[in-house]
């Protein structure tokens, strides 16, 4: 949000896209979650459908028009989360091989206890899949969240190295974080300003 506003204030054409937001698989996703029908593989593939749909309709056209696309999560979310659920790491990378490589990936990293605290402060309870209840690590949602998300975080850290993410310490004060990655953004934007007509891609990744 802050990043989007900052870019807009500086006159950049910006478009924002979220994870799991296309209408195409909404019904299947809802049904699968409600009736607990999803397996790690179908969970992964439904998200891939959603992503492919957004790539076609929401991400590629603005990029071709030379805009900046801010993506709240990208394929790396699948690389971490789906692998934590047990799918093969090479398989999920192959599934998403149609995706574009982002120009910049910002990785907002927080320890599990902090994300748990933030989530519980914001709402009454954890979501079933977010707590990894489907994986069956613990019958207690909070404990399950801790175990599952620790696994996710460990894989994320590995993926961060593999794809050269720019890591932001998300436990710091928000203005400190913003100053930190605005510097990185500025470097990317210098290139963008130079080749504005060619169309440059930007994406942001947060766990």
């Amino acid at each position: 949000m802050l990043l989007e506003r900052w870019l807009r204030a500086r006159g950049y054409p910006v478009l924002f896209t979220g994870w799991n937001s296309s209408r195409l698989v909404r019904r299947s996703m809802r049904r699968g979650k409600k009736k607990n029908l999803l397996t790690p593989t179908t969970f992964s593939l439904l998200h891939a459908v959603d992503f492919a749909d957004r790539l076609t309709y929401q991400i590629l056209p603005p990029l071709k028009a030379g805009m900046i696309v801010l993506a709240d999560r990208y394929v790396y979310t699948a690389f971490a989360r789906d692998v934590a659920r047990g799918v093969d790491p090479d398989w999920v990378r192959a599934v998403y091989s149609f995706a574009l490589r982002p120009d910049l990936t910002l990785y907002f990293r927080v320890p599990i206890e902090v994300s748990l605290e933030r989530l519980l402060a914001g709402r009454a309870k954890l979501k079933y899949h977010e707590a990894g209840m489907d994986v069956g690590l613990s019958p207690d949602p909070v404990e399950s969240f801790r175990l599952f998300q620790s696994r996710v975080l460990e894989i994320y850290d590995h993926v961060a190295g593999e794809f050269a993410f720019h890591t932001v310490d998300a436990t710091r004060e928000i203005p400190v974080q913003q100053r930190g990655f605005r510097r990185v953004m500025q470097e990317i934007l210098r290139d963008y300003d130079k080749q504005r007509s060619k169309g440059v891609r930007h994406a942001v990744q947060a766990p």
Partner: protein
Amino acid sequence: MRSKHPKRWYGHGLPYLKEKSLPGHLIVIEGTDGVGRSTQIDLLRPWLELEGYAVSRTGWTRSPLLSETISEAKAGHQLTVTTFSLLYAADFADRLEHEILPSLQAGFIVLADRYMYTAFARNNVMGADPAWTRDLFGVALVPDLVLYLDVDVETLIPRVVHGKGMDYWESGMHLALSTDLFDSFQHYQSRLTAEYRKLAQEFGFVTVDARAPIDEIQTDLRKHIAGYLRRAEPVSVPSADGEPVPPLSLRKD
């Protein structure tokens, strides 16, 4: 006792599943639209049941999770080759985990009306990356037997016209090969058949001539299935009261 029909995954499989024995048989009927797959499966099922086998059937895009989404998406015009392929793969995975594997575990014969090869053939015609399509289906189990109903487009056309008629998707109208439904059907189905024939070689399908009358095709299919079952290890088929019954010998047709 070592099984003579050991199962293997096509690619990475489903690493999160505990290894379980799959004493059942996975038999696939492949072939293009309108070739008579479902008619033949309707006839195979009671025959196998009379022979003492428990039979379950699974069909393309029939998963409870995806079937509505797929029909809805086909009704709109939102799908790309990529989303199309991923939806089919999701449908397949759902049926694999919820229907096919549990049935095989329980010793059933699973008759699959189409399998991953349909996606391989269609995706090649639609222009998807063939390596990517195959990667997607790395989760699949390799079938024990694939029976391919082969037909030429000239024979297929009158059957489809007399039957349910040419539909938008089966005619490949989404590929914009022609503005004429008939021309498009002919073009699309010829290309699909060419793909199926290549796949038949690569994956060792048993090709059955589907230009023959229904009962002749059925006789052929039964002969191949009986031959396969005799070669494969006999399985114990659970009866209705849960007691295993010894397998019956198969009549030679």
